Structures are given as structure tokens and as C-alpha cells.
């Protein structure tokens, strides 16, 4: 049971990571990065690391996508 759960979550993490890097538009990458961090949090919980899961959830799903969205807004410049 644990082995199946661990394999499933690992597969989810691998797919989510692939989804983040193939998304070309950085504004959309913020959303996929948030989902990737969510799958990582679940993986860390299955690997019996609640501290690390809490850290990854807050940083990866909230702070870094916010920074990416603000940067995209700034570098895109004035819209035509």
C-alpha cells in the first residue's frame, strides 16, 4: 500500500515537473509551479517529513508564484 502510494506520488511529481518546464509563458508557469509545489508537498508528507512539507507549501505555492507574477507584470511593460 505504501509502495503504491509512493510510486503514484513520485509519478505525479515527475509529470508536474515536466509540465512546469515545457510551459513557455512565464505567467502560466506561475500556476504550474504552484501545482508542482503542491505535488511536492504531498511527496514530502508521504516521505514522513511534515516540517519540510509545510515549508515547501508556503514558499512554493504562495511566495514564489507571487514573485513570478509581479516580475512578469513588470517586464512585460506597458500593454499596447
Amino acid at each position: 500500500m505504501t509502495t503504491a502510494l509512493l510510486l503514484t506520488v513520485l509519478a505525479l511529481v515527475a509529470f508536474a515537473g515536466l509540465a512546469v518546464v515545457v510551459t513557455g509563458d512565464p505567467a502560466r508557469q506561475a500556476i504550474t509551479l504552484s501545482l508542482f509545489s503542491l505535488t511536492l508537498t504531498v511527496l514530502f508528507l508521504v516521505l514522513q517529513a511534515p516540517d519540510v512539507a509545510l515549508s515547501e507549501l508556503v514558499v512554493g505555492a504562495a511566495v514564489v508564484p507571487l514573485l513570478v507574477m509581479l516580475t512578469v507584470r513588470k517586464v512585460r511593460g506597458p500593454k499596447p
Partner: protein
Amino acid sequence: MTYACYGVAAWLLLIGCVAMVRSRNLVHTVVSLSVAQAGTYVLLLGVGYQRGAVAPIEPAGPVVDPVVQAMTLTDIVVSATITALLLAVSVQIAKRHGTVVPDELHELRG
């Protein structure tokens, strides 16, 4: 099964690096760096895992390794600030050179 966890860690690290090399946008590069870093977290936690053990809080019985977890959790928070620094650099590049496409940044050519 034994190597699935390490394999996923290596996969994340390698696709992060390949995406950084192939990237056409500096912000995309920074996000791919985050993916590569996530690969190292998975590797660290995979090394410390023990089947049938519990989290290292109120230990009674076998627990997983707390040293790698301590390293990983400070690493996650610190790498968020490094990501912010890299994004600030790309904002300044956009302001000075007007583009965030790495191939168009002629002045940075060594």
C-alpha cells in the same frame, strides 16, 4: 522501486538544467532553476527515508533521518530569497535592455 525516488530526483534535476539552457525568456529560466532545486530536495529526503519509520517528532520507535530534513527545509526558504534576487536582476535587465530574451542580449556576450 528502490531507485524510483532517486530516479525522479535525477529526472527533475536534468530537465530543469536542459530547460534552463533552452529557455527563451529569463523568467522561464528562473522558474526552471526552481524545478532543478526541487530535484535536490527529493534526493535528500529519499536518502533519509526508512520504510516503516515515522516523522522525527516525539520519537518512539524508528524515525526517519532529521538531519537531511533540517537541511532541506532551510534550503527551501533560502532559495526563495535567491529566486527573488534573480527575478530582480531580470527586472533590471528588462529595464536597461528592453528585452528578456537571452538570445537578444548582445551586450552580455563575453
